[in-house]
């Protein structure tokens, strides 16, 4: 595997050819915020948090899918990018009903963490307070659409890892919603294997274990990558 040398925030970074700017940055200890990205799932570049400036490119590029190349000069934390990230987080907070105080994921929520990182002490945009349902039909898990940020991790993990494709995104634009089966109660979908991976990868409290109370959801989405690696090595073993 050949190596590419690039510059991230003024530091020279060596990275394997084929790696993304996000991977190269993380290896070098440069934190680029993400939400829709999760190691082990296909990238969708939808949340736009990981946009970076690349010298010579007029457009901002999502680090999660931009491959490294020799001599690339990347800036990950310019004032312009900080402002963009805060606005993205504000758009997410104002679009749904994110009430940290009563959320199962309070204290263990990627959205909440990102809000702190981008310095959001309040939302400068007005809250929209949409009317969204909660699905408690599954015996073990629940789905609170109020807390969903449409990152589509659940859709991807169920399709790409579990192979059940219980979830998909339906409708469009502001009306987009995660659906199970034919937009039916989750508990009535035969395809669901009750594996709980969707709950594990959900960055917020949208998908949760029933019975968990405020602040009691302690999932670790990064377990997915470990799971993938373990499966992979077993398949490769004789």
């Amino acid at each position, binding site marked *: 595997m050949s190596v590419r040398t690039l510059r991230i925030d003024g530091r020279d970074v060596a990275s394997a050819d084929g790696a993304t700017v996000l991977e190269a940055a993380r290896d070098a200890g440069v934190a680029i915020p993400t939400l829709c990205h999760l190691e082990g799932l296909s990238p969708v570049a939808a949340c736009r948090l990981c946009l970076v400036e690349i010298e010579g490119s007029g457009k901002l590029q999502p680090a999660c899918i931009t491959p490294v190349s020799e001599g690339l000069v990347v800036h990950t934390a310019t004032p312009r990018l900080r402002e963009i990230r805060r606005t993205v987080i504000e758009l997410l*907070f104002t679009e749904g*009903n994110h*009430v*940290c*105080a*009563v*959320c199962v994921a*309070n*204290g263990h929520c990627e959205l*909440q*963490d990102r*809000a*702190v990182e981008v*310095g*959001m*002490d*309040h*939302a400068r945009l*007005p*809250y929209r*307070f*949409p*009317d*969204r349902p909660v699905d408690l039909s599954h015996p073990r898990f629940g789905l609170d659409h109020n807390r969903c940020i449409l990152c589509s991790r659940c859709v991807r993990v169920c399709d790409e890892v579990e192979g059940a494709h219980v979830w998909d995104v339906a409708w469009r634009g502001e009306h987009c919603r995660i659906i199970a089966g034919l937009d039916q109660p989750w508990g009535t979908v035969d395809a669901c294997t009750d594996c709980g991976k969707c709950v594990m990868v959900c960055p917020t409290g949208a998908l949760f274990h029933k019975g968990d109370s405020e*602040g009691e959801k302690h999932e670790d989405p990064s377990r997915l990558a470990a799971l993938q690696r373990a499966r992979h090595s077993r398949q490769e073993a004789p």
Partner: protein
Amino acid sequence: MSQLAKQPKLRLATVWLAGCSGCHMSFLDLDEWLIELAPRIEMVFSPIASDTKTYPEDVDVALVEGGVGNSDNLALIHQVRQRTRLLVSFGDCAITANVPGLRNPLAGPAAVLDRSYLELADGSAQWPHAPGLVPELLERVLPVHELVPVDLFLPGCPPPAERIRAVLDALLRGEQPLMEGPEMIRFG
């Protein structure tokens, strides 16, 4: 001591709009520091430390807890803004509408009133109606800054006592508090 010591005491107010008073409780959690605070401020208006019913003029700092949920809240917040130099949105309800705002998706107060006063009534089910006495609910509970300009945001549900202290400390020193990092701005 700093400049402030030479000046008149800081005129502090705390205001309680649509919230659970938890932020005020957290303020009380400052315990013995309150004793340190007492000589440095003049508490000019507060549901927990003052009997004054009218919001006074010439307030230096107001900690406003709660969203704006009814006609009284609305009138008071405009008064607070007019008469206060530094308005602090104190806690998540003031900043996001938070728990009181959970009624907002229901499109108007009728659903809440029905549920509370009719469906769950033990007897004599009726909507409260006493114009001039019982304030009318607004269509939505709004964060304070959607109605009047806010100078400082102090998040948390409630903001931990240490966070409140860090802010007041800075203000007493005449400094702008540094609102960043999980200790200072995490919601919830």
